[in-house]
């Protein structure tokens, strides 16, 4: 076995009696709500982000059904008015509110916290060999800030509505009558949750690694979470400042972005994307980390190019701060700025490409099990590669002039955010579910659902690329007839995707009651979380583990072969 501690722990786990896990360590709702155990906080985040994902997904289905035909029809059923024209405009307003709510919840309440706050919280200390994160109480505070922010956002949306799109572009957002101030306050609060979580993780990684766990022996998931946390604490304050300026403009009438008060509307876009572009990497970097774990464990082979993958995460984190201007290619910013941002945008593509190549190379001469988690891992390579390659089109200035703000962009970021982050999140949940719950889910249903998700996802978003190149602008409630076919395919796909995700939810919940016992290490993983019982005990490890090798040293690796170590 790889590390002394892993050996010791495995013997411990083979004892007949299982020790009380963190789930049963104390009983009652109060003990969960007041918990400072990172695992319980992680599980509460997991439940919360899935709830927001569910709500935001239902909203997506609502507008996908509306978009089945060129004219308004479905949403007309939900509004009333004196005459056809008024019903029509009210349905347009409703459409705008639904897509805004979908985007706002998906980005701020689901994708940003998804992997880091739920699985990061649960596994960061386990993979480092620590008892908890550095600041357990701050961790709980982050969770409550997340909920307070989320509640304010939902409140704003229910009582007043929000129709600005998740990007809050000025001057529309400073003049619309909807609840922009309340909604931005909600996002502002959620931002602090994000900052505090990032801070907590950085300190934990620096100070609480087990003896012997050098930086080069950290699992790549930890490297990804580390890079993510750095972006979170550096970029999120800029979002907070921007939203505060927006609130000041709306409530105090100080002209910052609104040209009628002497402000500059494009300035808002600079501020907003200075946060939100790095935030794209807050959303995708943890997914990269997950994929490195899944691909290596389920092919029982050492990850290919450990250092390249680790350092490319850091490189992406740095360059991500210098590319925000590619969201402003058609905004009227100077040509010089546009050319510079285009160049830097291509620079960020290289470390991303290196990761994808390394994952594929990891498969070579492995021992690959097509478990549900691994299927999602391979699916990620497929969908994320499409997402990444279509980013190359948009980075090229002359092409972007045509494709900017069309469905091509919608398809591109869904291939990255959904095909990347959400697929990786699904993979991660299947990979670590046995560890978190101590139970196995039904593999057959897992594989069936993964195929449905794959078909549904591609059917939803691939036609949108073509709709976009043909000229279909985004955020349209109605459209001209020529785009009907793409929307029909997309709507059918979205319903398929919904069914697939529902099946996932059902068999996972069912497994908590009736799933087989998982045992400590169902996949043969070599990092520290697999060395302890499933589900783990409250303080994770009996003794502080000692690490003397890297986390991808699987027993199947053929140490007699001479071809390695160039």
């Amino acid at each position: 076995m790889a590390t002394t501690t892993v050996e010791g722990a495995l013997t411990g786990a083979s004892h007949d009696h299982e020790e009380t896990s963190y789930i049963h360590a104390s009983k009652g709702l109060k003990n969960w709500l007041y918990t400072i155990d990172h695992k319980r906080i992680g599980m509460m985040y997991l439940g919360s982000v899935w709830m927001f994902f569910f709500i935001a997904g239902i909203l997506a289905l609502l507008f996908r059904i509306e978009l089945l035909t060129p004219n308004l029809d479905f949403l007309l059923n939900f509004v009333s008015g004196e005459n056809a024209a008024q019903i029509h405009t009210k349905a347009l307003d409703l459409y705008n509110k639904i897509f805004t709510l979908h985007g706002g919840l998906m980005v701020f309440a689901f994708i940003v916290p998804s992997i880091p706050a739920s699985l990061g919280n649960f596994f960061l200390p386990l993979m480092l060999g620590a008892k908890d994160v550095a600041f357990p109480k701050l961790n709980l505070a982050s969770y409550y800030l997340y909920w307070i922010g989320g509640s304010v956002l939902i409140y704003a949306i229910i009582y007043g509505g929000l129709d600005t799109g998740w990007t809050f572009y000025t001057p529309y957002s400073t003049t619309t009558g909807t609840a922009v101030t309340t909604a931005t306050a909600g996002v502002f609060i959620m931002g602090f949750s994000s900052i505090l979580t990032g801070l907590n993780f950085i300190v934990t990684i620096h100070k609480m690694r087990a003896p012997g766990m050098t930086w080069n022996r950290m699992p790549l998931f930890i490297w990804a979470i580390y890079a993510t946390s750095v972006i979170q604490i550096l970029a999120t304050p800029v979002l907070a400042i921007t939203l505060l300026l927006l609130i000041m403009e709306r409530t105090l009438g100080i002209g910052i972005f609104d040209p009628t008060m002497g402000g500059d509307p494009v300035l808002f876009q600079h501020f907003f994307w200075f946060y939100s572009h790095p935030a794209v990497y807050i959303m995708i970097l943890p997914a990269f980390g997950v994929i490195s774990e899944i691909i290596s464990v389920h092919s029982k082979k050492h990850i290919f190019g450990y250092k390249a993958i680790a350092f490319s995460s850091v490189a992406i984190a740095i360059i991500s701060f210098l590319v925000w201007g590619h969201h402003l290619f058609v905004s009227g910013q100077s040509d010089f700025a546009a050319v510079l941002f285009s160049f830097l945008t291509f620079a960020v593509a290289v470390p991303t490409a290196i990761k994808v190549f390394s994952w594929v190379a990891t498969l070579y001469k492995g021992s690959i099990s097509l478990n549900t988690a691994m299927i999602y891992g391979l699916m990620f390579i497929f969908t994320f590669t499409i997402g990444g390659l279509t980013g190359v089109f948009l980075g090229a200035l002359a092409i972007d002039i045509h494709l900017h703000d069309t469905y091509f962009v919608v398809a591109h970021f869904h291939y990255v955010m959904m095909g990347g982050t959400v697929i990786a999140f699904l993979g991660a949940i299947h990979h670590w579910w046995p560890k978190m719950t101590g139970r196995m889910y039904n593999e057959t249903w897992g594989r069936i659902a993964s195929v449905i998700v794959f078909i549904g996802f591609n059917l939803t978003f691939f036609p949108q690329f073509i709709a976009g190149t043909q000229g279909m602008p985004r955020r349209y409630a109605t459209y001209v007839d020529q785009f009907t076919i793409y929307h029909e395919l997309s709507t059918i796909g979205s319903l398929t995707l919904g069914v697939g995700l529902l099946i996932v939810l059902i068999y996972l919940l069912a497994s908590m009651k009736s799933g087989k016992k998982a045992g400590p290490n169902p996949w043969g993983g070599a990092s520290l979380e697999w060395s302890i019982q499933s589900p783990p005990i409250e303080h994770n490890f009996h003794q502080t583990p000692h690490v003397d090798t890297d986390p991808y040293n699987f027993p199947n690796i053929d140490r007699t072969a001479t071809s390695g170590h160039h």
Partner: protein
Amino acid sequence: MMREFLTGGLVHGLLGQAQGSLWMPPEASTFANDMDPLFYFVLYLSTFFFVLLMGATVWFTLKYRERSPDQKTSPVKHNGRLEFLWSAIPTVLLVVIFAWGQKGFVALSTAPSDALDLRVTGQKWNWTIDYPGLNKSCSPTSVADPVTGIERMETDFFVPANRPVKLTIGATDVLHSFYIPAFRLKRDAVPGRYTGYWFNANEPGVYDMYCAEYCGQQHSEMRGRVHVLTDMEWRAFLKSGRCPALDPDADDYGEKLYQANCKTCHSIDGSRLTGPSFKGIWGKSEKMADGSSVTVDDNYIRESLRNPNAKIVEGYAPGMSVFDSGKLDDRAVNALIDYIKSLGGDDTK
């Protein structure tokens, strides 16, 4: 569709074409002729790398799937030469794409000196295109949707083929974006500043234009068409009565201004749209959102044009377009006030 995906794109990519392909709408400008080959270059390159990666993934997955629990795996951890190659090759290709892409983009900012100057103004939710010096102005007209019968304001405007046309784009209220897919061009309309681009439309025909930057309620209905005219048609257009510039001396000046600027949001038959109806509004005492009441008179209408958010009628949202003196001069404001007055006053007084 599948066959066209595989072969059609290649043919279309190599030959400029007016019909459009699976991927692209018809090419109707010199910029489209220049830009589409880059699009297809990136498309084929991406497809090549995608097939390469997926081929390797599927092949490895099938070939090295687990056959026994103690199946041995390769000890290789990295390979410097391979890693250098797969970093260097994409870098070179990306630099080529970058250079090609920026060349076409930068050229858009410098219009040829003989370009025809047009002024584009976006406002919620329609476009106006003015022809400085030609005494023409294409303003939105009401179009009933053929299916639903709902009216919306659409703008038709006209440009000569094979002659550079320069657009100076502005906005009166919020961001819009002036997008003509057949030309492959768009640029945001930003209130308080001018943006723009130029084009040379080289295929006579009629092409759709859209607003591409989200601008609120009727964003998806902020549409119109550009008519690319042959030389003969263009000369006929200039002499015709189409797109007449508004005549400040005409009796119906106020009504024309209303149609071009106000009709999207304010009815004259009493029906409720985004803003209050003008029917019977003159002299009426309106209750404001802040609880005060205001009598609709000359000064109130003037203020509502110049500074629309100063007073908001109860039950309506703020966010009306701003009409500064550049957009509507004093004479135009007076004509509009007279028109609103002519619609009848408050009978209850």
